[in-house]
């Protein structure tokens, strides 16, 4: 039930009057009812039906053209008669039975009946107006873009045969269809001569020279003032509607880039978080544009199994990735969402046999089909079963049991990582992309790129009273509320000196799956620096950076990057449960 702000005094009185000791019905104070305008005794509205009741035949029915309104219920008083007379005086002098329409409407919404529409029209339409003048005081139609059109085609008014004919015609009322404003987009050739088709390359160069990038706000006013020319050419250079400067999205969530319908386009299925097309043999020097191949966003070419969301290790992920890609950057990702031609290395790889076929060591890695089967058989081990399941199929070498290593605690973590390291040279050419997060000064963790959804600058966070020590609060995002946590506080504890949670500079929205076959949920981590990309190969596998008990709980694997061990965290383990503080902080 909605609160009743009108019934309560503005400050102190409200709280005092609404004492909880009183029943709810008594707390509702009603404001004194003001006599509305409908309660003021007004003159009866003329019903245009003469009243022939006795004693009223001498009324204004016989005097004025509009008959006197019938008031059978109320007796006719002197006040009523005088009011009715004054009302009759204001009536237009029309002979018809209906009141005349106001000649000029003060409402901006009565545009079809206002001749001001013709003020900025193209010449052919303007001549159809009976008077050709716009009443003063009417606003210009903001949607009328023909004003620019007139400037570009000054000769159309003279050469148009229809315009000449109608100009010499009778001043009859125009057809209603002609009253509509001319649409330069739908019929550009009827009014203007078609402009020269701009060269697409020159157009693109001009666009680049004007520094209009994909980060331009969609609501920029430049679109209104620009005439609608060559929409088919503009479509080739359509840039993604970036809702804000600070919004970067991962390639798997392209269809939710428009914030206007973000609530309806939210990924509600694990299929929405498709397996990112991580590279298998992408050369390191491939540009970001080359990485944006059309296959990246082709959902039919991706696996729809929810197990594909998981990233057990970066090595198994690269082995099961069907689509080769290359290193990329977030900025290029937002700038170039189109379909550039495939780079040469993709075609070469398509023609050449795969690495799994060529290298027997790589063939031992689990295939995509095998992973799906295992995910169906043991969904509870979804975060640990894919690369290291011991229940390998016939003919497939058994891999170390990662789940058992995770359960064994931190001591087992080096063993878990050391075994894949033994066959790392065989997979030296494989590369993957990791999103690097500096959660603390010179401390890094990594996430799979397909789990990093959006970066929000200066997030507004509502603090949750009594929440977990590492929890900053709730952040509004796409119609919902996301938990925002601080990784530094989670991994190293909240400093006692910190009383109020500082507002982070960024919040990185991460996707996770609370349970197998469940819808994708989202959480966010606080950041002070922008995330980075790092190309990771199998040779970079390394043990955990230290004996922190959180690494086996939250981490999937670890790789060495610029002399540091960077754990890859599992977003599902990060956001699904509460993390109690450990006994002895590292």
């Amino acid at each position: 039930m909605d609160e009743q702000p009108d019934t309560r005094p503005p400050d102190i009185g409200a709280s005092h009057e609404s004492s909880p000791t009183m029943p709810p019905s008594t707390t509702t104070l009603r404001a004194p009812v003001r006599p509305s305008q409908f309660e003021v005794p007004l003159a009866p509205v003329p019903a245009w039906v003469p009243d022939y009741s006795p004693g009223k035949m001498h009324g204004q029915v016989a005097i004025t053209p509009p008959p006197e309104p019938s008031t059978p219920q109320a007796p006719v008083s002197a006040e009523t008669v005088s009011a009715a007379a004054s009302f009759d005086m204001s009536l237009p002098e029309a002979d018809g039975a209906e009141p005349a329409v106001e000649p000029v409407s003060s409402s901006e919404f009565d545009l079809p009946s206002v001749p001001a529409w013709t003020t900025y029209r193209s010449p052919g339409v303007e001549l159809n107006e009976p008077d050709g003048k716009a009443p003063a005081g009417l606003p210009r139609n903001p949607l009328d873009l023909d004003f620019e059109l007139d400037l570009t085609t000054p000769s159309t008014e003279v050469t148009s045969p229809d315009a000449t004919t109608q100009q010499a015609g009778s001043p009859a009322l125009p057809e209603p269809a002609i009253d509509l404003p001319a649409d330069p987009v739908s019929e550009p050739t009827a009014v203007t001569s078609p402009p020269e088709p701009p060269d697409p390359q020159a157009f693109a160069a001009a666009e680049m020279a004007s520094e209009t990038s994909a980060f331009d706000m969609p609501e920029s006013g430049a679109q209104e003032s620009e005439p609608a020319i060559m929409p088919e050419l503009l479509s080739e250079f359509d840039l993604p509607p970036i809702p804000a400067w600070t919004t970067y999205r991962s390639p798997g969530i392209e269809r939710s880039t428009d914030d206007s319908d973000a609530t309806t386009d939210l990924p509600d299925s694990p299929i929405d978080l498709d397996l990112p097309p991580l590279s298998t043999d992408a050369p390191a020097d491939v540009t970001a544009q080359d990485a944006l191949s059309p296959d990246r966003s082709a959902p039919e070419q991706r696996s729809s199994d929810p197990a594909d969301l998981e990233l057990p290790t970066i090595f198994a992920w690269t082995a099961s990735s069907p689509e080769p890609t290359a290193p990329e950057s977030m900025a290029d990702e937002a700038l170039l969402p189109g379909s550039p031609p495939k780079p040469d290395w993709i075609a070469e790889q398509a023609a050449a046999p795969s690495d799994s076929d060529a290298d027997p060591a790589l063939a031992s890695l689990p295939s995509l089909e095998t992973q799906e089967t295992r995910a169906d058989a043991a969904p509870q081990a979804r975060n640990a079963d894919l690369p290291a399941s011991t229940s390998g199929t016939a003919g497939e070498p058994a891999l170390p049991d990662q789940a058992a290593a995770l359960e064994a605690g931190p001591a087992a973590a080096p063993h878990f990582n050391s075994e894949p390291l033994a066959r790392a040279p065989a997979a030296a050419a494989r590369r993957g992309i990791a999103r690097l997060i500096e959660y603390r000064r010179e401390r890094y963790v990594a996430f799979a790129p397909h789990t990093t959804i959006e970066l929000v600058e200066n997030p507004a966070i509502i603090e949750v009273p009594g929440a977990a020590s590492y929890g900053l609060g709730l952040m509004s995002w796409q119609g919902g509320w996301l938990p925002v946590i601080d990784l530094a506080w989670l991994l190293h504890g909240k400093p006692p000196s910190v009383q109020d949670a500082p507002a982070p500079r960024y919040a990185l929205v991460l996707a996770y799956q609370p349970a197998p076959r469940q819808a994708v949920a989202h959480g966010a981590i606080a950041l002070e620096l922008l995330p980075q990309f790092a190309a990771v190969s199998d040779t970079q596998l390394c043990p955990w950076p230290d004996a922190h008990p959180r690494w086996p709980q939250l981490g999937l694997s670890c790789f060495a990057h610029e002399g540091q061990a960077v754990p890859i965290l599992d977003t599902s383990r990060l956001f699904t449960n509460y993390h109690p503080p450990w006994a002895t902080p590292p």
Partner: protein
Amino acid sequence: MNTSVSASQPPPTLHGNYVLLRAGGLHLLLPQHEVGALEYLASVPIPADIPGLFRLTDADDMQDRRFIALSPQMKLLASFPQERFVYTTLGDEEHDLLGWCWDEVRILPELEITPQALPAVLRAPQTPVSRFAEHGDEFLFLCSARQLRNYALGLGETSHG
């Protein structure tokens, strides 16, 4: 609507009489029957002998009352905010003399609200709130008087219900 938790089932809608208690940026929604009498503060309470508690002597019955002022984190404040001008009890006999001071107390009769569960990653065992809701422009945390009292006074863990 996107939710950060599992959206397999729509969250249930609550209907009833509630009281909105506001203390700074803290907006709590409690069932009305768990909130006791509402009174004005005659003057600003002074710190009591126990940190976090304030006292004020009632002019009528010359009875010494204790008061509590909460922070947005639902912790006891060491200094009494000037904005707190009303107080309520939380309906328990044992702590009947303990007044909880607020900036605003608003009765919301026949309220119909659809709360959402607090994400699990934020929900510690001692967290007094388990659900939250939006009511107009306000962001409300739902809790019971017992959860509020136990958490603020450190009487023990709260149970999420």
